[in-house]
């Protein structure tokens, strides 16, 4: 059903947890469909993602895509990070089962929300 990469990220997820002093937080999903992803960002002065963590309630695909995206964007600029799509995340994991492409492939959306939250916070600070 799942690729080895998905199972790897599900069993050994990277960057699980919270960032206490995060400057960007984003959450997508809802309890109805059963997947909730929350992403915490620590973006530095140069607009580079210095640290990123996630918490996810959901199936293996949801956990793996969350884990994968944190790995993909850690150390990247937020403008590069914004270019990452859900589809790319799935591809990096060797693909997802068809029914999971829609419901559990939301990590890029969560990241986008976290970056927007960071930008909003920044704007307020100015």
């Amino acid at each position: 059903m799942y690729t080895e990469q998905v199972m790897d990220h599900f069993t050994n997820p990277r960057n699980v947890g919270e960032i206490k002093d995060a400057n960007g937080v984003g959450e997508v999903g809802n309890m109805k469909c059963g997947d909730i992803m929350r992403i915490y960002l620590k973006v530095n002065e140069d607009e580079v993602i210095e640290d990123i963590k996630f918490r996810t309630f959901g199936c293996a695909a949801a956990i793996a895509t969350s884990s994968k995206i944190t790995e993909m964007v850690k150390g990247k600029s937020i403008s590069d990070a914004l270019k990452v799509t859900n589809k790319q995340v799935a591809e990096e994991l060797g693909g997802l089962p068809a029914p999971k492409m829609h419901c559990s492939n939301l990590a890029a959306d969560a990241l986008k929300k976290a970056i927007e939250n960071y930008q909003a916070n920044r704007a307020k600070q100015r």
Partner: protein
Amino acid sequence: MRKVYLDHAATTRLNEEVLKEMLPYLTEHFGNPSSIHSYGRKARAAIEEARERVATALGAAAEEIIFTSGATEANNLTIRGIARALREKGNHIITSAVEHHAVYDTCLALQKEGFDVTILPVDEYGMVSVNAVADAITDKTILVSIMLANNEVGTIMPIAEIGKLCRERGIPFHTDAVQAIGNIPVNVDNLNVDLLSLSAHKFYGPKGVGALYLRKGTRLSVYHHGGAQERKLRPGTENVAGIVGLGKAIELAVKDLEPKANRIRALRDKLQEGLLAIEHTKLNGHPEQRLPGNLNVSILYVEGESLILSLDLKGIACSSGSACTSGSLDPSHVLMAMGLDHQTAHGSLRFSLGVDNTEEDIDYVLKVMPDIVARLRSMSPVYQGGSK
């Protein structure tokens, strides 16, 4: 790695004795039962012996048994067959909110085709009330279909009472007994049913074969067309080996039912106690009126598929009512009908025990479970206890 199969409600391992009886019909006795030569007669005789066995197990007569490709077909045949046969008498069908999709979705399809369908609610334990059935019956009611035992939470319905009610009103009564056979006594007269569906692979028989019990005198329209097999009610060359397997499997399933069920229930109770000792867990289904092998628990703050896969990595097989395992976006309609909120439904796990399970199996599950739950909760954004 230890392998522990706790998904007997999904399917069971074929019994070796059953396979042994099937094998000759997969080798030398390969005739088509409709053929009149010796090859055909041999196959025909085997089918009729299996029919006797199924009838005996259910307390029915052989000519009341129709072989099908499974319970899905038996359920569809029942609902469409009765709806069509009695269309002149009325257009009202009563069923419950916790039926298997083979009943539930067929009733919904008939609703779209203009039938009046009453879907009875259930209580928090998944139980249909006899009074609700009584209240729902009208002059136009042509069929009542309520399952004997629920496949997700194991709740056992008051079928004999509902059957009595229907009998008094002259309304055909069907029960989906798929999960009950081999786990609790099933006798068509005691249960007052006119039609009953079963599927062999749920009681250590082969997949792809089932049966419909059709009480003598109950009208049913033809649904499929083809050859003259099964009194034309179910045409198509018979799955001879499968039917032979069904016959043997049901014979074995009803043998020593009581001691088998007691043993399984004891193991189940032990598993139940151990799992409910984990905090933020909840039992689903009726505390007593429940199949001996069924244990459905919700593990709050985590999602079912993650749990199943984590257990699978430890060699343990079970299932969940989570949306992620159902192929749809919504969690189990059974759990939702019982009033569970989405999160509790998503975090449900169903363990279903069978004759081969041992005390060691249960000990093993109870040993690995706490760590799995803790790990997934530590990742969960909805688990407060998990915040560091």
